[in-house]
């Protein structure tokens, strides 16, 4: 096999029309998709002693088996493969009809032909080779931008005869970057300040300000919580409550404090193994406990144990490797060079947890050992004091009871019994206080290693009760070797291996995900899988550049993000010609700014923030905002019912919303939030009637609309047009044009007339508010409906 960096191979051949065929870009995806299932890395399934994922070796593509050579470099005539992919003979054609794989198209055949004729060169799979700094591209237009991102994007545009779009207008820009960095739209004041700032560095100053906001950490954390399937319940069977909020809060703080991504990874994989581990490190190790867990009595514990470990390793695969490692649970991976032995060698790092495989009934306070208390020293001191008092009180009660039992005289007995009543009352009050304090002390489930290392066997066909060959802790063979600090490899060694600059996956996977966050689609679209069955990158050099500069910056996340959002590529307008949308609906060429519907949390948070209801309290207990009745009832096995929280807490950001895996909040899932029972690196975005119904009819959202309507009527008591502008700008960050103003004005007039005629309807909307006479009520009702309509506008829900 020839080892070479992706960059040197792909930097010239950019267009599909290019004459040069690249193995990694053009040939490999075809072979992987059509051939590897039977002629790939999985030795068990391999047919005719042929593997096409490598050239050499007994089974390699160049081999001759029973007189037939699969690929003879330079000659299609002498290559059996060419005959097999082009023949009409149904018995001989590859892939065979019964495999239900598409036959190769004429274009694909042409690619294979050119590849064989030019010597059928193999290359190492691009994602498994460390990234290299790309050469500076030669451009026709040297004026557009000096930034490396832009120059690499422009190189592709020029090769495709495309031009970048102009810069988005300032209103669009501040809205875009505010939503992208904080998950919240800009306020009217913020817009005004940005519009009036003519300094050349105004935009950079805005970016710096946004990166410094505490809402930045909350927003970025939310993507991470999808990725690691963070939730407030166990996710199986009785789906009991679990307490993981300390982990969630740590993720927010880590992003806000800009903890280096290398440490971010280390703490999560092996925080418990640091000597004198800090509480942050221990909290972060909860990453290893985020898997689903079942309660005792319904499954076999051995099987539950196995499932937990597989879940844990799968999470590591998706999160840090961008690979579907769990495919190798039952057999060698069919597409990637990951053997079943590799899988169980990784498994061996994660199966030595000192914890029960199932929860014993409903875990107290949602905690399953091992867990740690995190309270302040003062809290612990108070708790101790309370416990002492409680013990004393308990003694007093018991002594008195004895005394009463021994007392013969009825009168005295009565007096003593009264005394007992007051003592018991005192005891109960003390106990109540102690328990409250106890609950207030945050605790977190952590990773803990057993003293003795558990032996690990390959499980034959992935069956928990079919142990095969014994394996030891190790990293996959096709990746750089693991460095061990001691005799036995540890999770700390593994964590260090992940963030070693020679690891080709860790940085690539995360910079691709960040790119996805700012453009809607990653440079590798399949951000959960950059392996053989993932897509090849749209801009390989750009991905390499970002990867290398990220590692060089010391895994500095804010620097990476700043580099992305300052680029002219990011700042382009999303307005485009229809044919451009048709040709490139997902904006893979980056010839314009991306435009896509916002995630569920952003839509809800925007409604809360623009209506003024948003409560900015950070951290702590998860919140249950009101939701339609009966949802929990329909799935519960324990009689559990949803009870909405009261007070201000229900207006906290959606990130803090209580997440029951068995029935996640509908405001979120209807808009494509995942259920959080598996690691999700990218959400889908659909348009459904259920979403329309949610945003039109959810009574909480209507309440928020009323709140903004009330504000608008207060702020602009007399001036209709200014009131419209106030409302429209608050919601969309834009001002309505003349036509829009007219349409909105018509609506409000019509509605107001209707509500005057039907005061009962107006009363229903104004319920609970002291509004005034019928006219005032009709006015507020009409404006409420108007704001509700604005919340449903395409431009409101879209980040553009």
């Amino acid at each position, binding site marked *: 096999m020839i080892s070479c960096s992706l960059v040197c191979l792909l930097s010239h051949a950019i267009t599909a029309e290019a004459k040069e065929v690249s193995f990694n870009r053009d040939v490999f995806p075809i072979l992987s998709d059509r051939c590897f299932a039977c002629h790939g890395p999985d030795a068990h399934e391999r047919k005719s002693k042929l593997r096409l994922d490598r050239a050499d070796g007994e089974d390699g593509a160049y081999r001759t088996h029973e007189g037939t050579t699969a690929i003879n470099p330079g000659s299609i005539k002498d290559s059996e493969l060419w005959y097999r992919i082009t023949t009409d003979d149904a018995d001989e054609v590859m892939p065979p009809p019964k495999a239900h794989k598409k036959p190769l198209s004429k274009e694909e055949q042409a690619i294979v032909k050119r590849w064989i004729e030019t010597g059928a060169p193999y290359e190492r799979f691009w994602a498994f080779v460390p990234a290299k700094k790309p050469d500076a591209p030669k451009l026709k237009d040297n004026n557009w931008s000096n930034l490396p991102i832009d120059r690499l994007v422009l190189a592709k545009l020029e090769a495709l005869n495309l031009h970048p779009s102009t810069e988005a207008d300032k209103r669009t820009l501040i809205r875009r970057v505010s939503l992208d960095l904080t998950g919240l739209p800009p306020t009217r004041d913020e817009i005004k300040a940005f519009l009036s700032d003519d300094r050349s560095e105004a935009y950079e100053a805005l970016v710096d300000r946004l990166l410094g906001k505490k809402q930045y950490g909350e927003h970025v954390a939310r993507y991470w919580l999808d990725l690691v399937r963070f939730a407030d319940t166990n996710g199986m069977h009785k789906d009991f409550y679990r307490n993981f909020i300390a982990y969630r809060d740590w993720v927010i703080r880590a992003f806000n404090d800009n903890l280096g991504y290398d440490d971010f990874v280390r703490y999560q994989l092996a925080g418990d193994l640091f000597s004198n581990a800090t509480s942050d490190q221990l909290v972060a190790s909860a990453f290893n406990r985020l898997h689903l867990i079942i309660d005792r009595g319904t499954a076999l514990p051995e099987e539950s144990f196995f499932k937990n470990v597989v879940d844990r390793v799968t999470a590591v695969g998706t999160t840090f490797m961008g690979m579907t490692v769990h495919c190798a649970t039952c057999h060698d991976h069919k597409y990637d060079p990951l053997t079943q032995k590799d899988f169980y060698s990784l498994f061996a790092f994660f199966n030595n947890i000192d914890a029960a495989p199932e929860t014993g009934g409903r875990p107290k306070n949602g905690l399953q050992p091992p867990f740690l208390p995190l309270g302040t020293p003062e809290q612990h001191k108070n708790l101790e004091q309370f416990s002492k008092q409680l013990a004393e009180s308990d003694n007093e009660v018991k002594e008195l009871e004895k005394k009463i039992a021994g007392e013969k005289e009825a009168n005295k007995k009565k007096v003593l019994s009264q005394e007992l009543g007051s003592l018991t009352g005192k005891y109960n009050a003390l106990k109540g206080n102690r328990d409250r304090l106890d609950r207030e002390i945050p605790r977190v489930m952590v990773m803990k290693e057993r003293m003795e290392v558990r032996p690990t066997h390959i499980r034959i066909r992935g069956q928990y009760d079919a142990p095969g060959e014994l394996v030891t802790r190790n990293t996959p063979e096709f990746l750089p070797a693991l460095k061990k600090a001691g005799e036995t490899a540890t999770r700390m060694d593994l964590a260090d291996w992940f963030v070693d600059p020679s690891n080709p996956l860790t940085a690539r996977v995360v910079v691709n995900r960040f790119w996805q966050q700012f453009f809607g689609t990653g440079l590798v679209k399949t951000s959960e899988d950059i392996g053989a*069955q993932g897509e090849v990158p749209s801009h390989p050099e750009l991905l390499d550049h970002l990867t290398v500069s990220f590692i060089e910056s010391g895994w500095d996340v804010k620097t990476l993000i700043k580099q992305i959002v300052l680029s002219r590529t990011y700042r382009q307008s999303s307005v485009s010609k229809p044919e451009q949308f048709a040709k490139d609906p997902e904006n893979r060429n980056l010839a314009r700014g991306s435009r896509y519907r916002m995630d569920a949390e952003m839509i809800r948070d925007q409604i809360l923030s623009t209506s003024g209801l948003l409560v900015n309290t950070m951290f702590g207990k998860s919140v249950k905002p009101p939701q339609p009745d009966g949802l929990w009832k329909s799935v519960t096995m324990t009689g559990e019912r949803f009870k909405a929280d009261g007070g201000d807490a229900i207006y906290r950001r959606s990130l803090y919303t209580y997440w029951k895996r068995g029935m996640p909040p509908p405001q979120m899932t209807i808009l494509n939030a995942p259920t959080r029972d598996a690691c999700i690196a990218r959400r889908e975005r659909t348009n459904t009637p259920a979403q*329309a119904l949610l945003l*039109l009819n959810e009574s909480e959202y209507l309440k928020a609309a009323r709140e903004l309507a009330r504000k608008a009527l207060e702020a602009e008591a007399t001036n209709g047009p200014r009131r419209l502008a106030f409302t429209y700008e608050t919601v969309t960050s834009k001002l309505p044009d003349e036509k829009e103003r007219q349409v909105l004005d018509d609506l409000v007039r*019509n509605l107001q007339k*209707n509500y005057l005629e039907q005061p009962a*309807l107006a009363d229903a909307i104004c*319920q609970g508010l002291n509004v005034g006479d019928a006219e005032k009520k009709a006015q507020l009702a009409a404006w409420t*409906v108007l704001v509700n309509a604005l919340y449903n506008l395409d431009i409101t829900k879209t980040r553009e």
Partner: protein
Amino acid sequence: MNVPPLLHRTRRHFFQDCGIGVGKIALASLLAKESFGATGKPDFMRFPIKAKRVIYLFMAGAPSQLELFDNKPKLKEMEGKPIPPSVIKGQRYAFIQPDAAVLGPRFPFAKHGDSGAELSDRLPYLSKVADDLTFVKSMHTDHFNHAPAQLFMTTGSGIPGRASMGSWLSYGIGSESDDLPGFVVMRSGGNLSGGSAMWGSGFLPSEHQGVPFREGSDPILHVSNPKGIDRTAQRQTLDLLNKLNRGTHQRLRDPEITARIDAYEMAYRMQARAPELMDFSKESKETLELYGVKEGKSDFASNCLLARRLAERGTRFIQLYHGGWDAHSNVEGNVKNNAKAIDQASAALVQDLKQRGMLEDTLVVWGGEFGRTPMVEASAALKRSGGRDHHPQAFTMWMAGGGVKPGITLGQTDELGFHVSEDPVHVHDLQATILQLLGIDHSRLSFRFQGLDFRLTGVEEHHAVEQLIA
């Protein structure tokens, strides 16, 4: 999603030609990805379309086949004696010991109809329609705990997160309705272990997931206007949204905008349709009595009637869950109560569909996630007696209509009802059969996710059961 209009029409024509109705919603994702051969029909449509819709009555918790369908006089004979170890073959149970005693059937059986199907006396109504039913006594499954087994039956995998059968159908052949969901879920009786993952869409786009109907007159989440907003105000809101969104589309040309406009219009139609759907006042007294619907009561009977109404209005896949069959203790009482709750309405559904001429293209499926043991479950500690534990090795299901052969019984179990002795039908075989009745080759309806092509029926080879297909 941007779909070339011509392709859209081709597909529409295809569905019209073969009479399955136009999949009006949510086709776009499939259209963009599927390859249509020269015939213009999707590659997986390989069989004659016998059923256009499915009503699946899921008996969650696992009903005892030994008290309902699978008569085993031998159990009566052996009652109280330990089951021979040669039969058990090392099977482990969560609650009972391998040497537990045999428990005889708790109810008498009798033969019914021309087909001579044997049913227990707990199913008097179903006994009367026995000739319309097709029994499979040789079902077996891979899972012996409720949640994975229920997921296995509904999604083809014991792990949550896969696409459910209804979502596969919505994805593959769309819905016939443009004002109601294509996949509806209803519930009655006890709890469900598998949870909402049983009607999830897994890796398929989320618009294909089942829509759980809620109890009461407001079945679909947010389908009613909030207080203070009448239909006029709602229409005015939509008109405004349309105007402004069209304006944005003119300026930006983003095709996603038109998709959103369409979604809003369908939502508005659903708002009008839902109250009509839920209004039983036009149903005759005879029909209401046939099902045993009691006014104002939401239960399995009203769900069955609602299922028929949904079927009439074009919903593709209607799944009714009736929980509470998990008889670890007192299997006699459990079967008595649950059979009473479902017998009349299940039979009424078959009868009603038949008299309306809908049974021929509506497939009704009835069954749980596994069976129950021939051995008794009893434990003083858990206060259990006279129960039966989970039994994945053999259980009974029945189907009716939609192209299955009526009045036959497929498969047999051994004399203790422990193992299948003839014509075993694996859960994936059953799923393949259901898809085939809808015209679909189960091995070809697949979806690429994380680099793999997923199917409802998994990676191992499974087959539709030809003996069941008329």
